């Protein structure tokens, strides 16, 4: 066997050979080969970035929601500025002499650091101004125009949904090295959620310049040019007209209005009020400070980012769970004498005046509090379970299968999960074994610790419409180059058998359509549309009650499900009901019937926000 010491030298020789190969390659690339030498000097070359047009956003019917318009940035290569008529430049660019002077002074101060770089001199000038500049460009060596595209909004719909774009910030750049200073990106809403598709890919052209700095022609016939790739267009599920109408209905009210297509989970309209108008989006930087300070928080999308007690609409779920657990039958009657007494000392959960006793569907129609206290009591005291905690955990699992208490998984990144408290929560709060039905009686009617987002409530309306399942609500449709998560195509079933739903739908129908029988939602009645609905009035610790309404229509093969949630607007039938009904009527009939004109006028003109 050879000496191992020998191998030390062999390995060193190997190292030497490899280093020699690398050196040889370097020598070839850097010294011998000319074809790799493009430009040692920026003087002889100029590169022009081509910014791709951002993808366009359409509504579900192909109507343009967000488009692009062209403007120009004026760029300068300070080293290439040989002579400068400051006054003439300021005049041509519609700016002040001082602005030009300050800029040039800055460039002189940082002369060495800037080197041959090209910087942005003036941002976003109008095409007319640019044309004037282009004609006289030869007088300003070192300056040139750079085409950019900006967002344009031809239609005032969905300001909060669409979001806005802005120039990249230093922090964003640090996290996203694929961007360069001066690029634009989506900050909020759809623009942010679909940034990858909308963005497109930058390209560039390389030009040669002659000795006087004038652009001569394309370098090597454009061999090294790269075309910009436009961003992909996004098709949303929004109906632009419905969205616009919804915004008009919600004007001056605080809350949300969400409409879904039950058969697909597509969001037809989503209004958060007060919101942002699209003309604000177009020039967002100017309005940002004011909008942030506004105490009504217009920047915030309440439909997914606010959670409220759902109120009486929640009675439907308790009814369904009671039916599924076989502790309730549709024919069962319970008395209600202005409420339900739940402690021996006579504490009472109040109810309004209606006839008594009632069966299930009449209780839904009249939204009887007492009835649903009995229902919830029998759910929690079901002998099938050992104790309240077990029964409660079972109930909670059923409720969560309706999409409550967890994020639905919609394509809104800011979506909240709402809250369905766990048994552990009550164990901690009241101690284990120390809480029973009377302790949490308010859950019977959707009050107490329960919280839900308007989107979750709308999704619940869609579940009622579908009789037992939903598709996860979403706002982007799949189109060329744009994929959506396959989960949006999957039916999500609740834990309640689909057969039970048929037993409570008549109550929802009667609430709207049984005129003169004490239904709570007669105001939403539209002849011929067969709207099924449920009102709700949720206590609000900050003033007047919140007004809630869910509905779907028509009763068979529903095409739309709506939830309206209006803060501090009182009883559900006062504002939420009419707003939701008008939206449904507009969507299904295309116009508002004569007998609803007064109602429409009242809704459109009322301002509830002080």
């Amino acid at each position: 066997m050879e000496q191992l010491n020998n191998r030390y030298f062999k390995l060193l020789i190997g190292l030497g050979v490899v280093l020699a190969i690398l050196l040889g390659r370097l020598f070839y690339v850097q010294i011998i080969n000319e074809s790799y030498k493009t430009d040692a000097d920026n003087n002889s070359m100029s590169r022009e970035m081509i910014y791709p047009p951002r993808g366009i956003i359409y509504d579900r019917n192909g109507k343009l929601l967000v488009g692009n318009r062209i403007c120009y940035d004026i760029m300068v290569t300070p080293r290439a500025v040989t002579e400068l008529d400051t006054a003439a430049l300021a005049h041509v660019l519609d700016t002040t002499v001082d602005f030009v002077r300050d800029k040039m002074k800055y460039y002189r101060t940082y002369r060495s650091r800037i080197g041959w770089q090209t910087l942005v001199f003036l941002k976003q000038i109008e095409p007319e101004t640019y044309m004037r500049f282009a004609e006289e460009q030869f007088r300003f060596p070192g300056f040139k125009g750079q085409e950019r595209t900006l967002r344009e909004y031809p239609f005032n719909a969905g300001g909060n949904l669409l979001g806005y774009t802005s120039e990249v910030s230093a922090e964003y750049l640090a996290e996203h090295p694929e961007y360069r200073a001066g690029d634009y990106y989506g900050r909020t809403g759809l623009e942010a959620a679909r940034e990858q598709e909308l963005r497109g890919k930058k390209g560039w052209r390389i030009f040669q310049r002659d000795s006087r700095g004038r652009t001569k022609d394309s370098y090597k016939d454009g061999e090294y040019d790269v075309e910009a790739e436009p961003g992909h267009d996004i098709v949303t599920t929004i109906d632009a007209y419905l969205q616009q109408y919804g915004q008009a209905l919600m004007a001056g009210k605080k809350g949300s209005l969400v409409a879904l297509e039950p058969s697909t989970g597509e969001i037809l309209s989503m209004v958060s009020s007060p919101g942002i108008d699209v003309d604000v989006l177009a020039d967002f930087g100017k309005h940002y400070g004011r909008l942030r300070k506004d105490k009504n928080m217009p920047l915030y999308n309440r439909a997914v980012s606010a959670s409220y007690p759902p109120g009486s609409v929640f009675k439907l779920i308790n009814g369904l769970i009671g039916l599924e657990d076989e502790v309730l039958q549709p024919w069962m009657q319970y008395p209600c004498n202005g409420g339900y007494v739940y402690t021996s000392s006579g504490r009472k959960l109040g109810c309004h005046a209606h006839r008594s006793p009632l069966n299930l569907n009449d209780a839904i129609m009249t939204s009887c509090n007492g009835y649903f206290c009995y229902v919830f009591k029998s759910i929690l005291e079901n002998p099938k379970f050992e104790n309240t905690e077990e029964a409660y955990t079972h109930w909670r699992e059923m409720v969560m299968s309706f999409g409550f208490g967890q994020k639905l998984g919609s394509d809104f990144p800011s979506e909240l999960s709402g809250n369905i408290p766990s048994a552990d929560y009550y164990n901690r709060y009241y101690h284990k074994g120390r809480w029973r039905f009377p302790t949490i009686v308010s859950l019977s009617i959707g009050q107490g610790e329960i919280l839900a987002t308007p989107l979750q409530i709308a999704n619940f309306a869609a579940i009622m419409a579908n009789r037992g399942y939903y598709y996860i609500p979403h706002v982007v449709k799949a189109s060329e180059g744009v994929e959506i998560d396959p989960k949006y195509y999957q039916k999500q079933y609740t834990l309640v058998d689909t057969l039970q739903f048929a037993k409570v739908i008549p109550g929802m129908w009667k609430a709207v359509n049984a005129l003169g029988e004490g239904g709570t939602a007669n105001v939403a009645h539209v002849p011929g549309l067969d709207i099924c609905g449920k009102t709700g009035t949720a206590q609000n610790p900050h003033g007047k009650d919140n007004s809630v309404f869910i509905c779907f229509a028509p009763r068979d093969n529903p095409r739309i499900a709506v939830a309206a949630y209006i803060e501090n607007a009182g009883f559900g039938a006062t504002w939420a009901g009419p707003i939701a009904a008008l939206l449904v009527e507009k969507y299904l009939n295309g116009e508002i019937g004569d007998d609803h004109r007064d109602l429409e006028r009242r809704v459109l003109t009322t301002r509830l926000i002080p």
Partner: protein
Amino acid sequence: MIQDGELDRGLRKTLDWRLIAVYVLIVLFGWINIYAAVRSGEPVSILDLSLNSGKQALWILGAFVIAVVLVFAINPYVWESVSRPAYGVVLALLILVIFLSSNVKGSHSWFELGPVKFQPAELSKITTSLLLASFMGRPGFKIGVARDVLMALAIVLVPMAIIVAESETGSALVYVGFLLVLYREGLSGWYLALMGLAVLLFVVTLKTHWWVSLLLAVACVAGYLVYYLRRVTTLRNRRKVIRNALVAFAGSTLLILATDFFFNSVLKDYQRQRIEVLLGIKEDIRGVGYNVHQSLIAIGSGGLFGKGYLQGTQTTFGFVPEQSTDFIFCTVGEEWGFVGCVFVLALYGLLIFWLVQDAERSRTAFTRIYGYCVAACFFMHLVINLGMTLGLMPVIGIPLPLFSYGGSSLWAFTVLLFIFIALDRQEKKYF
């Protein structure tokens, strides 16, 4: 009686200052080049924390602290004894990261802890080196014994396989360097030769035709037979030579037949495309070949003396992607020219040379083998990274050690190197 002072010789004599000087030079030169690579548009400070250069400054300070701790605060004898548990823990992390990681450019190898990201694959180089040194350095280890050599190979191949599963082929390729360590410790050179032949046959098959490869294989095997049959006289050894030749030939044939399958079905699309571009089978300077093409333009435009620091023009518009990390050498080529590149190559050459020299001089097998492992890691990273940047190898994204932007890589290499420096110092102290 021997005085303490005689035993414990001063720092000046025991610490290998050459290695430390080279280390500091590489790190600092890397830092100023990162600044040149990331700076764009408006002038900003090199310490601006929103830029990679500012962050790297913090990483470098941290690395220096780590180096000091490794040399002064930790008894180097610890390393041999922790090699087993450390290897096990890192192996667990390597597997865990596949399930827990977020997807970074298609690979599942990064742990994200808030703002900090790190790759267990970086740690694994250290622990593999330690365990390999501990296993091969123990008395009684014989490279000729099948069980021993297979065990040594397993120590290397297990983490390598997991890293391949993390889609970090580049990092996995580095482990091939450990074969050089095995070679130094007595593994037959024919294994290296066979590996070289395999790569050659693969390339030739793709570039020309399978029958050209086959002819090549026949020629190699025939050359081997002719050369050795003349020298070997005993019947037993002649049989052995013939057997070796047959095995080599059968292997080559199999490899040539499997090339198409491997290339089209095993490799991922992007890997296949990168190899095609490298071999000139496809011309694609806008797509896959774009990085390398831009990288060569940047380096080529540097010429002999370069354009001067911060005067590079290819950087301004970001023509070269990943310029502060994997393609950092472009900046050196463009701004410092051939002279600067030779300087950087010389630094790495000296680093590896002195590492190997110290390792050779060492009296304990553990330190010697560990030193070779460290040298091999640096060597493989250098060759793969520069090979890619210079268009000699397919695009494999691994950093230039100590030079590229990235905290986890910088720290890992610092630990790797300074464990050796501490081991080396310990020996010089007492011998």
